[in-house]
């Protein structure tokens, strides 16, 4: 019972290795079966995390602590709070969809494909659970490998370029993160992000990074190292250019994971590292983050408007939506951060659904160009209905999950500064414009070509996936309380912590234990 987080991490990885062992494509059916079973099991073990989560406490829960590399004081230290627990669930759930989405579309090297996704799912859970800085980093960087392979092996014609660009871009950030982590390690004597609960016996009790006093210069350096690492991952303007390439070339499953989970890692990093470890620098440079976020919301939104490729359009819309998330974080209000978190989860569902819908079309026609479509509603009415719902959610229509997060962030922005709120609110227009215009061109009108005429409506498998996502999108839009309840206490604690200055009052050197 206590090792639930380890199970959440290692179950998918073990299943992935098992699927890998089935070998060649002769056993493709077996590999798919094992992968699906593994994905379901992986999701199954995360459900008790939600059910057993104590929403009144801001402390870490389901904590595991074991020394790992004692020579460097690195520990295998896992735990979740109200901020991270939902992402573990989201990630495990999305993995099930991803395995299902590749059921028919992937016919070559099936075992490797499924293994890559399952292993990645485990590694991502590791990122969200890690409370040791080095453990976090190890998972953070290791998760690049499967995604690199997924894009490069099963991707589109320009996949090599996209895969290498993706890898190198994110590596730049993570190497700077590594330097910051090393600095914090030498300063604090350990990699503890959070306090070790008292029930675990350890030989040394080093100071946690949250409590570590740092001068404003140190904070600034560390803050910018974190910023580059996480901004690339989010991605924020102007380091976002890898994302459209990666999305366009990745197979459907890859795009889904990329949008639904991988982008959240950067934003999560801001909450886990930037705000608590360098609060003074975060306040000092909040203006920069807010400005970049607004550029993402408005400028990238306009860029999305002119895209001719559906996947690229959704990729740019993802960047714009993530701009909302970072905007929410750096206004330092509970409403803003909660709104941003809701937006992250909602975007996990909505973008996954959008990419799955595009995947449905692509599997049938092998084109993603908007111009190749038209009149799809005549041949695929059921699909058109689902696509409509998700497009509306992407545009932020009330009663869908997309609305809740955006609304909360805009409310927080109004409290913060009216003009920022005004600029942010423009997304409601731009977002609606690019999403609905694309929807109109693809779905409505006369049947554009023979290919569209030959389209078959969605299969039972696709129907199941889209129904589940539709329920999630609507459910979260109509009744977001189960989500906000979980995060509320932890967000308050985070804000309380981020409001305290960490600059040492007397000019003394902090002791290295």
């Amino acid at each position, binding site marked *: 019972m206590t090792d639930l987080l380890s199970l959440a991490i290692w179950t998918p990885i073990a299943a992935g290795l098992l699927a890998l062992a089935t*070998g060649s494509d002769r056993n493709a059916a077996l590999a798919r079966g094992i992968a699906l079973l593994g994905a379901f099991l992986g999701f199954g073990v995360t459900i008790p995390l939600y059910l057993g989560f104590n929403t009144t406490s801001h402390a870490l829960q389901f904590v595991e602590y074991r020394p790992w*590399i*004692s*020579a*460097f004081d690195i520990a295998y230290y896992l735990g979740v709070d109200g901020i991270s627990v939902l992402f573990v669930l989201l990630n495990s759930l999305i993995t099930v969809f991803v395995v299902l989405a590749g059921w028919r579309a992937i016919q070559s*090297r099936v075992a*490797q494909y499924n293994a890559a996704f399952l292993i990645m799912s485990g590694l991502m859970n590791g990122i969200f659970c890690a409370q040791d800085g080095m453990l976090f*980093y*190890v998972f953070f*960087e*290791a998760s*690049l*490998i499967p995604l*690199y*392979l997924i894009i*490069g*092996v099963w991707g589109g014609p320009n*996949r*090599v370029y996209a*895969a*290498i660009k993706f*890898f*190198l871009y994110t*590596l*730049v950030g993570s*190497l*700077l993160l*590594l*330097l910051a982590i*090393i*600095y914090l*390690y*030498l300063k604090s004597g350990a990699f503890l992000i959070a306090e070790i609960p008292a029930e675990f016996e350890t030989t040394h009790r080093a100071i946690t990074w949250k409590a570590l006093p740092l001068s404003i210069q140190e904070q600034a350096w560390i803050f910018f190292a974190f910023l580059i690492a996480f901004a690339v991952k989010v991605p924020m303007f102007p380091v976002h250019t890898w994302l459209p390439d990666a999305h366009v070339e990745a197979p459907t499953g890859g795009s889904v994971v990329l949008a639904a989970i991988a982008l959240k890692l950067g934003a999560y990093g801001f909450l886990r590292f930037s705000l608590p470890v360098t609060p003074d620098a975060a306040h000092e440079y909040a203006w920069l983050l807010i400005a970049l976020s607004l550029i993402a919301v408005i400028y990238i939104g306009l860029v999305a408007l002119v895209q001719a490729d559906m996947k690229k359009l959704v990729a740019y819309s993802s960047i714009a939506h993530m701009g909302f998330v970072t905007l929410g974080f750096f206004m330092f209000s509970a409403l803003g951060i909660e709104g941003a978190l809701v937006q992250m989860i909602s975007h996990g569902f909505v973008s996954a659904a959008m990419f799955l819908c595009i995947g449905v079309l692509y599997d049938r026609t092998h084109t993603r160009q908007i111009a190749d479509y038209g009149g799809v509603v005549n041949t695929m009415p059921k699909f058109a209905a689902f696509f409509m719902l998700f497009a509306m959610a992407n545009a932020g229509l009330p009663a869908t999950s997309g609305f809740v997060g955006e609304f909360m962030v805009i409310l927080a922005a109004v409290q913060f500064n009216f003009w920022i709120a005004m600029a942010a609110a423009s997304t409601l227009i731009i977002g609606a414009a690019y999403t609905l215009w694309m929807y109109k061109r693809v779905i409505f009108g006369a049947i554009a070509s023979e290919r569209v005429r030959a389209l078959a409506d969605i299969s039972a498998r696709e129907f199941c996936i889209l129904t589940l996502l539709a329920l999630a999108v609507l459910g979260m839009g109509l009744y977001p309380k189960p989500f906000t309840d979980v995060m509320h206490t932890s967000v308050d604690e985070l804000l309380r912590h981020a409001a305290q200055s960490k600059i040492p009052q007397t000019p003394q050197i902090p002791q290295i234990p």
Partner: protein
Amino acid sequence: MLDSIPSFFQDFDATALNLMLSAPEIFLLVMSCVILLVDLAVKSPRRTTTFALTQITLAGAFVLIFFVMRPRSLEETGVYAFGGMFVNDMLSYALKALVYFTVIVTLFYSRRYLHERQAMCRGEYFVLALLATLGMSVMISAHHFLPLYLGLEIMSLSLYAMVAMNRNSVAATEAAMKYFILGAIGSGMLLYGMSMVYGATESLFISEIGERLRILSVLDISSNPDTVLALGLVFIVAAIAFKLGAVPFHMWIPDVYHGAPTATTLFIATAPKLAGFAIMLRLLADAMPVLSVDWQSMLMVLAVLSIAVGNLVAIMQTNIKRMLAYSAISHIGFMLIGMASTDTLSFGDAYASTMFYVVTYVFTTLAAFGIILLFARAGFEADELAHYKGLNQRHPWFAAMMMIVMLSMAGIPFFVGFFAKFYVLKTAVMAGYYWLAAVAVLFSLIGAFYYLRVIKYMYFDTAGEEEAVARVESGFFVKALVSANALGIALLGIFPDFLLRLSRTSALSILLLQ
């Protein structure tokens, strides 16, 4: 003036020969002579008897280390033999054991390759390998300039011959020539430097030099910089850089790696790095810690240049052996960062991180060349990157193994290469060299590109019409050994504690010697 300094030999029995302490070396020497004779009677073209005897000898030397090792010597300072010329401390036990182990694995990997090239499959190849191992062993234990130089020459001369073994190959002959000439220059510089240090300290004993330099610095003679000493140091550092292959003394590395038969390349690329690390430690850290400020800054320049040149030039290579040569240069640069980050707080960490880096580098390189050797066959070297196109479709298992090796070299976790880089960077930051760490990180990013490119060839491309790696003809044992080697890299990455502790204890033994 130096006569007034009390002799270092008052501390221990200078006349003691303690021959038994060098039992592994003596065993190696005797057996290499025996094998040379026995080989005359071996008729089989596979040289099975010679091969088996060689491996048994190495294994025997490996076991002898544990007999020589004093039970309590983990924390103890070194024990001396040959009147102080030869030292056995934790560092030498560990490095010798690693060298013997590495050579055993190397020879297993090379066996089929040698057999398929009859010019190379002679008894002499194995004898030369043993002699080179003997040389490394002597280098590791040497505590006097003379045995140190002798060991270096035994190793180098054997290696030159091993490169030239394939007489029919023009490239190999050229590589041997180049290696020999540049190696001779390196050795000459070392001798020159040693003679100058001798001139300044009037001693060839490493411990004594350390002692005298310390006294000289206390007497404040060093405030008037001793030109002879400084020049000697420069030559010694340059010679070490030559032997390790640090930029700007790296010219021989790409040509020798590329031109030499792959089996020999594997030999040169692995165990001699351990011995090179040993002499660097003995000459700089052991003999001249007082001058650390001076050699530290020289090493820093070498390190930055090596990382930059190695990583940048590797990008343009199409031959995998040449690419690994440039990658070796950049890894040497990383190693030197560890060595250069000696600050009063972090002496132990600096040496330990360097040792950890070298050892993981040797393991990783073993696996990399092991895989190349698996795919080589008669008339086909499997050394172009393009040969590995679409490897994943034909040999998914070995493609995965190669991927592990490449990711480890690039420094991606969970592979041990990551912790090696982490330890070195940590030491640099600890010593306050933030810029050095930043430069290293920047270039390792560039380095990641060409490692990723290998993965791209294996996984993203499909094999075309051109010649490509086909079936693996090696036996099950070698395949299992290569796999264990590669998986070991992953395993060491998850549980690096043992190797870390070993590196620390060994590095500390150097400090205890003084």
